[in-house]
């Protein structure tokens, strides 16, 4: 399979030349894809006057972390927004795992009356877009005093992430060999002990995948946060940055600070993606398309 292109006999083009062409196209694509990210980062380290210059400069003429300093103390201060985003994401991961690990185990390994019906009910959330459910959820959260709380937003994010997570985990639990489970049962282990000692270690990659997707979704999610968080001190990172795009300082958008915020928002996502790329891609293959 890896020789797919190398062996391609192209009419009129010698194989050697085709290889250089492919390499050049690959490089050009990489440059185009990376350029916006690089330019944004470079803009975040421009000195204040240069960051606000019109027309903008391509490359910084000086190096300054002033934009990051301004972001650090913007409104409630960057630490507050980072904590809101991080707290929501961790809660969303926790809720998702606590609900879907046992549920996936049950669906894969237990005879439950009406199991198929229950599975369909659980996947209802997959069919109804959460964008359409936000108004009734908001009204419910007003009653439960969950608006403007990290827990409330984490619940919204768990609702979004539940079907995908359940699907991935059910399939993983189904794939655990029966002999492993039987050995544990012969040893007198309860189903709970079997889950902890046999199943969870066996489906570890699926658990990492589920946590990874929940983190990236929650960290980036915008509309749910916009609806649920009205108090400025509860804003997540995307919300405060979106607010900062129109709020003016010194008579215009503070572009340098905005780029600093963009860089800080992107770093965790890119980092976990590069570290856990294998889990990410396998999760996408099994979850998004099947």
């Amino acid at each position, binding site marked *: *399979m*890896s*020789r*797919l292109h190398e062996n391609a*006999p*192209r*009419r009129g083009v010698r194989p050697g030349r085709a290889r250089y062409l*492919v390499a050049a*196209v*690959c490089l050009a*694509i*990489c440059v185009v*894809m990376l350029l*916006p*990210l690089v*330019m*944004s980062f470079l803009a975040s380290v421009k000195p204040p006057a240069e960051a606000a210059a019109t027309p*903008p400069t391509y490359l910084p003429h000086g190096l300054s972390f002033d934009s990051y300093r301004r972001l650090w103390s913007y409104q409630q201060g960057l630490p507050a927004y980072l904590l809101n985003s991080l707290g929501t994401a961790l809660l969303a991961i926790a809720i998702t795992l606590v*609900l879907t690990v046992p*549920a996936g185990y*049950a669906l894969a390994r237990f005879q*439950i*009356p009406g199991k198929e019906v*229950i599975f369909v*009910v*659980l996947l*209802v*959330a997959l069919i*109804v*877009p959460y*964008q359409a*459910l936000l*108004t*009734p*959820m*908001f*009204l*419910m959260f007003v009653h439960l005093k969950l608006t403007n709380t990290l827990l409330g937003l984490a619940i919204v994010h*768990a*609702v979004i992430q*539940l079907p995908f997570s*359940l699907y991935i985990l059910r399939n993983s639990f189904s794939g655990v060999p029966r002999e492993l489970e039987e050995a544990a049962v012969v040893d007198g282990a309860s*189903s709970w002990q079997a889950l902890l000692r046999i199943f969870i270690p066996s489906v570890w990659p699926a658990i990492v995948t589920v946590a990874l997707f929940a983190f990236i979704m929650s960290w*980036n999610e*915008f509309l749910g946060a*916009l609806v649920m968080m009205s108090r400025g001190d509860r804003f997540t990172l*995307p919300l405060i*940055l*979106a607010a900062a795009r129109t709020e003016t300082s010194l008579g215009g958008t503070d*572009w340098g600070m905005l*780029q600093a915020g*963009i860089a800080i*928002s992107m770093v965790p*996502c*890119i980092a976990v*993606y590069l570290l856990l790329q294998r889990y*990410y891609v396998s999760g996408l*293959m099994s979850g*998004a*398309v099947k």
Partner: protein
Amino acid sequence: MYRSRRRRLVGFAYLAPALIFVLVFTVYPLGQMVWMSFNNWSLITPPRYVGLDNYRQAFDDHQFWVSFLFTVKYTLIITPILIVGGYLLALLTSSNGPLRRVTRTVVFAPVVIGLGVSSLLWYWLLSPDSGLVNRALTDVGVIDKPVLWLGVNANTSNFAIIASVTWKVIGFGMILFVGAIQAIPTEITEASLVDGASYWQRVTRVIVPLTLRTVLLVTLVSVIGSLLAFDQFYIMTAGQPGNETATSVFYVYLNSFPYLKLGYGAALSILLAVTILALTVVQLLITRRREA
């Protein structure tokens, strides 16, 4: 007998938390939304039953159609770009050389950053005086005065946003197409090599037909995602000019929250959900056919 009944109860106990969560936070809100859609309700005044009036109102509402048609237009333009572009990228990078693997990683990277954040990034790149797009186009000599990309003309805004979203999500289709292309058995590609087929003959007669199911599924996922577009328009145009670039989800949001027309917003939500439901059913049918 006792053991198996007990085991069923234990299984149900493992399932119960997730089931209760979905009943409380998805099924109940869904029911409430249906109920709301038959009422006139503004949070301040108590709900009043109006039957199908909210739905009738939608069909006579000019902005409902503006939003719906704009969303459809956005979807119809961006979907072929994402599918064809993603597929070409997959053909280019599906074999496992180091440069191709790096290209794949780079093209996929924007998929993991937030749509809100990437929209802010492009909001800057496309800004009239401070953006690098206008600066670069001026330097190359394509334009002589800054173009107002966002929020002034609906078509220009749509075009600019489509470019930015393409950058952000094209890697999604690519990575799934790479998976499908790599899953084609080696014997088949080798057989077509022996037959002396040219590269493009192999692509059109072997590779594309054998990955068609993935193409269909990615198309549906892209269509559903595009019909639910919100973040990019909220951030980059705020619906301007005159709500011409307010998408369907945007219009639901406007009615439910700033305007507080909860019943009407719920009716719009239901119309949206029904559209998505139809597409999801098609998606499930395609999936089932392969499993059967």
